[in-house]
């Protein structure tokens, strides 16, 4: 063992320089050509900047609500609920979310509420929701904002992101982009 200790220490030092200095520098160099120079893709709106990939909390009736979050969309510390499928307390929470949704959206049938709107995402920062999650909120927003339902449905269609290259993965909508577009409608 003795004869390996010094070589091991020296090898560790050179490899630290190679893998934690040189390699990241190369990646950082390439990052300068990436969106927003590798500081996270942003959206600018009315002089404010938002992160395109980081979901925000929307609970106001005039906006499309985003999914529930176990960390209240705090992107300084991501997290899921980690509740098990059979946990009674958790199931009661889901039931309460359904009830709240029905109170704010009296014209919606319970069977139209998609499951993603009443369950928390893994990261607590999900920037997206399903197409059905947007559609089920159209009646409420139309009433609150005084906008035609047709207009809102067109907006949803415009913001629906198709599966990757049209063939892989689910359809989804970026909630932030949809709500910004909603504010810009007038």
């Amino acid at each position, binding site marked *: 063992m003795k004869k390996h200790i010094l070589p091991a220490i020296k090898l560790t030092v050179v490899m630290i320089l190679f893998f934690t200095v040189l390699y990241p520098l190369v990646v950082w160099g390439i990052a300068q050509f990436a969106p927003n120079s*590798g500081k996270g893709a942003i959206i600018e709106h009315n002089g404010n900047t938002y992160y395109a990939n980081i979901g925000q909390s929307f609970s106001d009736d005039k906006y499309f609500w985003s999914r529930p979050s176990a960390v209240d969309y705090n992107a300084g510390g991501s997290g899921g609920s980690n509740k098990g499928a059979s946990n009674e307390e958790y199931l009661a929470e889901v039931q309460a979310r359904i009830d709240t949704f029905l109170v704010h959206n009296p014209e919606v049938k319970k069977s139209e509420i998609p499951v993603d709107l009443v369950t928390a995402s893994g990261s607590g920062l999900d920037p997206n929701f399903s197409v059905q999650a947007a559609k089920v909120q159209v009646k409420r927003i139309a009433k609150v904002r005084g906008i035609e339902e047709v207009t809102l449905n067109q907006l949803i269609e415009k913001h629906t992101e198709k599966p990757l290259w049209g063939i892989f993965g689910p359809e989804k909508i970026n909630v932030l982009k949809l709500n910004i577009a909603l504010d810009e409608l007038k």
Partner: protein
Amino acid sequence: MNTEILGIIVMFSLSVLLAIPFGKYIAKVYGGEKTLLDPIFNPFERLFYKVSGINSQTEMNWKQQMVALLTINMVWFLLGMLILMTQGSLPLNPDKNPSMSAYLAFNTVISFVVNCNLQHYSGETGLSYIGQYWLMFLQFVSAGTGMAAAVVLFRAFRDKSTADLGNFYNHFVKSCTRILLPVSLIVAVVLLFEGTPMTFEGKDSITTLEGDVQEVSRGPAAAFIPIKHVGTNGGGFYGVNSAHPFENPSYLTNMVEMVAQLIVPLAMVFAFGYFICRRKLSWMIFSVMTVGFLMLTIPNINMEMNGNPAIAQMGIDNTLGAMEGKESRLGAPASGFWSIVTTVISTGSVNSMHDSSMPLSGMNELLAMMINAFYGGVGVGMLNFFVFVILAVFISGLMVGRTPEFLGKKVEAREMKIAMVIALLHPFLILVGTALSAALPQYTMETLNNPSFHGLSEMLYENTSSAANNGSGFEGLGDDTIWWNISTGFILILGRFLPIIGPIAIAGLLAQKRYIPEGDGTLKTDTATFGLMVFAVIAIVAALAFFPVLTLGPIAEYFSLY
């Protein structure tokens, strides 16, 4: 066929298709043959050896290699304790995150040295950027360690009757530079252009559209995330790992990260065949692994797609599947698929919260780690599988009444004893660890996030993930306590180094024996019949040992829910 299933099929087939030529490349690297990347890496490696005074061409026997391996791992452990316990006062800490406690640092360093990446901290608040990059270094070298160990096995069956099995440093350095690094760099570029941050600035604070203040953690993540997959480490930059929209921003990055974690474990299987010139044996191993993998994966995808029956009963639209703990951009099927890939190959990165998986999905995730040899982690997966092969050879030998042989070498009592000890060590660590956790509720009760059967599953998962060096978790468990840090710390060490030393010892002993050319009576190990035999051994030794505890956890939860 829907787009979500199609995405899964393409992810898996693409990984296999790429792994075959990549396996050939790996075989060339370890064989010392010329490769395309020589002009880039030769000068660097020469520099490494010059500085450290190592002669990378000195032949070593298996014992010398193990001593070299353990010594350098010890150096990393000590240096790691030092860095993580002082990171708070070191530079590159824009978010002013604190130094780790000794217990947490102990668990964290061990867990990264052994290629597990059980994370009892959350990246955003628990590490400075120096801490993150120290762990990234460990992700490279721990993967390289596992691969260098596997090469001893490769050499043992290529070179007939010899004690010289190559040079540990040579195999280790080449694994890091020529195999792990190039793939990581390619993955990093994709991540960058899909929106993963690569900045040394700290948290940003923005005002949301509704007018709230939102903190956003960033950091140099794009260099870190690729190696966590390519080296099957699994430790995330951010707390929620690849569920985080910066760590896995799109379905495209999800596909790339999936291929990145599958490619090296798959390629090692093919590399073995190329290296010892027995390609048919590779296909036998690959087939057994794939059958086992699919038997775990397909039910998971199905269960996650069908969703939670208790929520369906509430009368809402449940067609999206089990969305608790899952991301909309990835969807339930791809998350179910990932949950098995990450557990069979010991990555342990997650793109959904396994704690919220359906009960039997959770069971399959546990089984994947309990078996730990369907593909398995880089290098070590082959070693684990080799133990099962030796057991199968022995049992088959007994059945036909001949001395058991594997690739022209007699398997005798000494090798069998080692194989048995290693095969039983894994269930021993998991079951004893879980039993102790359950027997000491004063240390564990408060840490559970769910009651009843699922609470037991959380403890079982933590112990299984440690013993299998996997690193994923039922993350509801509040695991930054002295009990969990210390108990899993020791399970991690035993679950890593004994399953490396054991198979290497067997290979080393076999290598020294006289080579017996194959005859008519030789047991053919590259046939479907023998594959079935190996599968049966795995099913009996690995899976059945855990049946009682699975009954008390996930199976009981299943019956309470359906």
